[in-house]
Every structure is written in C-alpha cells, then in structure tokens.
C-alpha cells in the first residue's frame, strides 16, 4: 500500500517535470513547481518509513518552503517586476519535450546499472530525470525567473537523491538542501529584481553585455 503510493507520487514528480517543460505560461509553471514541492514533502514522509517526529518535521518544512513560500516569492517577484508574459524558450517547446524524452530514456537506462542499495529503486531514475529536466529548463529559457524555476527543479532532483540516503544519513542533509534552495532562490530573486529595475528587462542575455566603457 505504502509502496504503491510512493510509486504513484514518484510518477507524479516526473509528470510535473514534463508539465513544466511544456507550459508556456509563467504562472502555470510556478503552480506546477509548487505542486511538485508538495509531492516531495509527502514523499519524504513515505520513504522515511518510520513516522518519527523528525520525519513529520521534514515533510512539513519541505511543503512550507517548496510548495508555499518559494512559489509565493516567485509570484511576488513576477508582480514586482511586472512580467506576466510567457516563458520565452530559446529552444522550442516541442524540442524541449523531445529533450525531456531523451533525458527520461538516459536516466532510466543509467539507473539500471546503478547499485540497488536503496529500498525504493524507482527513486534513483526519477531523481535523475528531475535533475536533468531542471537543467534543461535552466539552460533553454531566456528569462531569469524561468531559470530560477529550472534551478528549483534541479534542487528537487537533488532532494530526491537525498531521500534515497535518508536511511543512513540523518535528516541534516535534507535540511541543508532546503536551506540551499532557499538562499539560492532568495539571491536570484534579488538579482532578478535588480536586473529588471536597472535594464528594464530580466533577460539573462543582458548579463553577458555588462562591460565597462
């Protein structure tokens, strides 16, 4: 029962990866990433196995940070910088979908040859897929805010990897990851804010034209 629920949630994580890859509206992207955060929170509870107080704490912390705080923060950044339009990908949606499909094949292929030391073997390929698709989103989107979303997804992948180690390593790792995400997004949010104010655009391409003289 618990096993199949975990499986279902992991599949949901992959489906949200693809949803972010295929959505063209920024607000929808943020909604998907928030949903993914909530799923991760429930997952950490299920995979941990023993429902000790620190497992509950971790799940609550994950959901609060990944599903509520960060999305609200992203929405605030969008509102502040008044950017409400589409995602503006460098690579088209169809091509990024195909890239996502390739990532799916590669990560499940790689996961077969990995040592099956973890209890829930599906966790490893799903973590890999989330990592790679996060990387794809990070690299192929013009706007800084979409890059933050890609970074968040990448962190979600790392977090999933962290769950696989939850048995042997204390929850300290996950707490560190959470903090990492928070700080990263915070800084990038401020950067986004500033870029928008200074250059009237938050396109990351403008960063490369920063030169003196």
């Amino acid at each position: 029962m618990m096993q199949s629920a975990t499986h279902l949630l992991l599949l949901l994580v992959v489906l949200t990866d693809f949803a972010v890859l295929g959505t063209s509206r920024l607000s929808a992207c943020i909604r998907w990433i928030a949903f993914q955060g909530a799923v991760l929170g429930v997952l950490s509870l299920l995979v941990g196995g023993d429902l000790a107080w620190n497992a509950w704490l971790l799940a609550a912390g994950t959901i609060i940070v990944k599903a509520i705080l960060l999305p609200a923060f992203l929405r605030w950044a969008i509102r502040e910088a008044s950017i409400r339009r589409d995602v503006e990908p460098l690579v088209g949606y169809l091509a990024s979908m195909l890239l996502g499909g390739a990532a799916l094949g590669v990560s499940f292929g790689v996961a077969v040859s990995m040592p099956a030391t973890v209890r829930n073997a599906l966790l490893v390929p799903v973590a890999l897929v989330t990592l790679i698709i996060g990387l794809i989103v990070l690299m192929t989107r013009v706007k800084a805010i979409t890059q933050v979303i890609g970074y968040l997804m990448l962190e979600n992948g790392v977090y999933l990897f962290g769950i696989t180690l939850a048995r042997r390593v204390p929850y300290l790792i996950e707490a560190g990851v959470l903090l990492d995400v928070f700080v990263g997004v915070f800084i990038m949010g401020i950067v986004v804010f500033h870029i928008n104010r200074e250059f009237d655009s938050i396109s990351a391409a403008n960063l490369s034209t920063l030169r003196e003289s």
Partner: protein
Amino acid sequence: MRPAASAWIALAIVLVVAPGVLGVASRTRALLTRRRGAPVLQSYYDLLKLLRRGSVLSDTTSRVFRAAPVCLVASTLLAGAVIPLDGRAALIRFPGDVVALVYALAFGRFLLVLAALDTGSSFEGMGASREVTVASIVELGLFLSFGTLAALTKTSSLSGMLGAPLAAAWPTGSPAILMTAVGLFALMLAECTRVPVDDPATHLELTMIHEVMILDHSGPDLALILYSSALELSIIAAIIVTLLAPRGDMPVAVSLAVLAAGLLATGVAIGIVEATVARLRLPKIPLYLASAASLGLFSLVLVLWSSP
C-alpha cells in the same frame, strides 16, 4: 458461445453504436454549455439523409476520388477486425498485427488525402497537408503506446495485448496502463479530429483540418466518410475501454455490455473535453501531440525498466 461468435457480435455492436458515440458527445457538449442540442440519434439521421441523396462529382476528379470512400470504410473495418473487441480474441490475429492496425488507419487517411488532392483544389491540398502533419506525429504516439502494451504483456498481437495477459499485468503495471490509456485518449482526439486539435463543428475555413479535405464529397460518399470516421473513433475508444477494464476473464455478455457502456462513456468524456477545453492554435498542436507521445514514452520506459 464460440469465441469467434462473440467477436462478430462485438464488431456488430461497434458498427451500430459508432455514430451514436458522436451523438452522445455533441449532446453532452450542448448540455454542459446550457443548450438543448441535437437529439442523440441525429448522426444516424444525417447518415440516412446523405445516403438518400445523389452525389455531385467534379469534372476534374478521377476514379480515385470515387473509390476513396469505399476503400476508407474497408480499411477501417479491417482495423476493427484486428482488435479483440470482445476482450478475448480478434477476428483476424497474427503476431505483430498491431502494425496492421496502425497502418490500416494510416491507409484510410492516405486514401482521403489522395481524394482531396484529386480535386485539384488548393484549399483541399492545404487541408491534406495539415492532416498529414498531425497524423505523422500521432503515429509515433500510437506506436509508443502499443509498445508499452507489448512490453507489458510480452506479446506482439493485439489479441494478447488486450486479452487475458493484460488482465494478468494489471496489478503490477496499472500506472503504466493508466498513463497509456490517457495518452491514447489524447491521441484519439487528434486522430479523429476532435476538439483540442480540430473542431468538427467549425466551418471557418482557415482553422479546419479534416473538414477541408471532404468538402467536395457529397451524398453517399460523404456518408461513408463520416461513418468511417465515427467507426475509427469507436475502435480506438474500444481499445481504451479494454485497457481500463480488461475483459479477458469476464463472461461474454458482461464483456459486451461493458464495451457498449464504455463506448458511450467515451462519448460523454469527449463531450466534456469539448465543452471545457478551447481549440488549440495550429502551431500548438505538435506540442500537444508530443505531450501525449511522451506520456506513451514514459510508460514504455517504466515498463521496460521494471521488468528487465
């Protein structure tokens, strides 16, 4: 009852119910948008009306144009015969008949495209080009979905994929089967030119896909084309119904009842989609199809991964 007899009865059910599924879909759509809508049997009346009319043939058309509707119905019937509609065994079955199914559907479309090009109308040529663009991506998704079923049941014949082995695979492979069913539903909407891809009710030329190609057909020819597209929809819907409710070990009567009820339920589902979802712009369609195909890919990878 011998297996073959139940297969014939199931085929007969699909043949009879097919236009009704469209009627149910449009009725659901009408009810959800607060209209009264046409009667459920309207599509039957339309077919009868068209069958009684004469047809007008353009001087530029050749024999291809006249042969296309008949051959289209024949190829769609072949597709129906390959599928185990009664949930047990198909009328025609051989290893790899899944390819025959996809190509029978593709052959019908090819004939329609030929007939459209035969009219020499640039407008119909445009419709043909759009139809083929959509179909080429749909085919990828279809093969990925059937590949999932083949990997899951370890057979290459549809009678195995949708028969008893499917029911045996359900407890372990249900996520993959569900995703395949959802992907197939999305592909069915594209293949049968329903709402997110094409609107059968539209008569605005710039946005039409399928309807453009059949503009020059009239009378019994048009009736055959409309009937075979309804049949195609019901055939794919029958696959989805079988996926969601494997009927390999049900009694024959129950299995046939489930088939008929499932077809009508698919009509309701299509109506709900049509009432709630807006039609996609043409450039967005490939992304929609790629999403459906990636759902198929994901389920295929999942199945291959969990059963090395």
